[in-house]
């Protein structure tokens, strides 16, 4: 945000100078038609920063109501799978650069997300968090712009309605709870996990070149991996948590996040 404002103010200054060195490229943000010689100050925005999240169930592509087996051998089917990501930051190229709208709601059935703009150039790594940053997490959802993933105008937004804030991760579906693990997946599982302690800060080392034809970053989320370590039985505490009412199960799921989210 600060960087982008800095870029825009540089551009403003550039456009008002006369008869001096400056940026002489007409395609640059700070093109100065009065500049005589190029001084290497040209800055450009990449258009169309796109993130593609390939959602998976292990090796298979994600689909609702598709049978899959957890690490403990239980058959499951997902009916709802979405999470908040926040704080996208790109390192390198004179940065770090924070995206103007830092919040994203990723749904397992949607792959492609328009993330706005990134200054042109080479980046070495990027970071984001699974979950919502703590400042936003305690803000009033009605105060976010209508286009924000956190706004209560957004029909998909997930919030508990009180101060623990947003529900970061929503995993819902059905599971086979039979002792012999040979039945139908028909008992509900529900993971609604949030609170500041369950935000997971992630870092990815990847060379990215943002050009003026756009840049795409390909990621993967393995929703099956998120259920690693669970053994969901007829005991509802093994398959249902709203975080405050079942902290251990919430923590168990969150432990899988840094392995479940990765580069494609």
């Amino acid at each position, binding site marked *: 945000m600060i960087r982008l404002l800095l870029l825009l103010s540089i551009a403003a200054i550039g456009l008002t100078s006369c008869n001096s060195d400056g940026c002489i490229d007409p395609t640059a943000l700070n093109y100065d038609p009065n500049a005589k010689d190029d001084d290497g100050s040209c800055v450009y925005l990449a258009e169309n920063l796109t993130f593609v999240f390939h959602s998976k169930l292990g090796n298979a592509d994600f689909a609702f109501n598709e049978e899959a087996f957890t690490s403990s051998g239980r058959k499951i089917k997902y009916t709802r799978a979405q999470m908040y990501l926040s704080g996208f930051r790109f390192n390198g190229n004179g940065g770090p650069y924070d995206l103007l709208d830092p919040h994203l709601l990723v749904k397992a059935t949607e792959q492609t997300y328009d993330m706005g703009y990134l200054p042109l150039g080479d980046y070495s790594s990027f970071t984001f968090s699974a979950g919502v940053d703590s400042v936003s997490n305690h803000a*009033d*959802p*009605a*105060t976010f712009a*209508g286009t924000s993933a956190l*706004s*209560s*105008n*957004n*029909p998909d937004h997930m*919030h508990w*309605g*009180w*101060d*623990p804030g947003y529900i970061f991760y929503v995993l819902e579906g059905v599971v086979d709870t039979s002792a012999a693990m040979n039945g139908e997946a028909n008992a509900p599982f529900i993971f609604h996990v949030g609170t500041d302690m369950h935000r997971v800060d992630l870092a990815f080392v990847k060379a990215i070149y943002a050009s003026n034809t756009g840049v795409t970053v390909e990621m993967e989320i393995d929703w099956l991996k998120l259920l690693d370590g669970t053994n969901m039985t007829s005991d509802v505490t093994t398959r249902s948590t709203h975080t*405050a*009412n079942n*902290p251990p199960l919430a923590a168990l799921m969150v432990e899988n996040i840094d392995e479940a989210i990765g580069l494609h």
Partner: protein
Amino acid sequence: MVLWGAFLFIGCQKDPEVPYQLAVPEWFPDMEIPSDNELTQARIDLGRKLFYEPLLSLDSSISCGSCHLQEKAFTDGLPISIGVEGADGLRNAPTLANIGLAPYFFHDGGVQTLELQSQQPIFSVEEMRFSIAGFLDRIENDAEYKNMFMEAYGRAPDAFGISRAIASFERTLISGNSRFDQYEYQGESDVFSDAEKRGRDLFFSDQTKCSTCHYPPLFTNYEFENVGLYQNYADSGRARISHLSGDNGKFKVPTLRNIELTAPYMHNGSLQSLEAVVDHFNSGGVAHPNQSESVVPLQLTEQQKADLVAFLKTLTDITFITEQDISDPN
């Protein structure tokens, strides 16, 4: 003559941006109003319309006013409130009398602002089970709403306007004209019977310590207390927010204003009458480890119990429950 007439005409026009003057009794604390939601008549009018608007619920059957009925001092007379399609709620609907003076909301204090609280029941599965986006679709062609939002907040209908307007209306829900107020703050000593005077003195005595937590003028200290209802609480109360075992079974100290009208009592409506409540406190509770130090056996006589109940009934404010400006306009 013509100029004088013109001046009069200008003076009589209602200016919707003129700040609204809240009528708070002088013996009440000042009400803090957030700077992004100053009170105006336009905001209050919109908030009142939304407070009583059933289109905010999934099947258009329930508004805020369905669980917060003016004639019951903005409660609903049920142990646990009921949501759309007969959904079981979680807790007893608390009164909204003087809610603008509270530092937090819900029985567990989980929300710090009225503006945030007003959104929660809309989304809650057990309550209105709907969404702001869905409501905005329903009023897409409603010129009256569009005008009201524009006049109140200078914007098209959205979550910000909805939450701020409802909060503004709720700030006008002021109850400070009970017989207790007349007796205690306005020197009208003949409005109390002898039983009520005895009950008042007992309420403020060291023997009962009622006023330790329920002290005037608001009859709450806004702390969280465990009053020893159960050995094992199904609803952990404040612990749900703080995750501290020492908060298990603690709930907000409710105001006692209009308590005659807001049965049944406790976070889960488990006590049906004021007599049952007095009996509970007289018994000293079940000695839960987190129980308040003030909740101990009181050894009240039958006369004393009756006097206490008589006193509690003096906290009823008839003007509050009949005031037209805060009633259901539908």
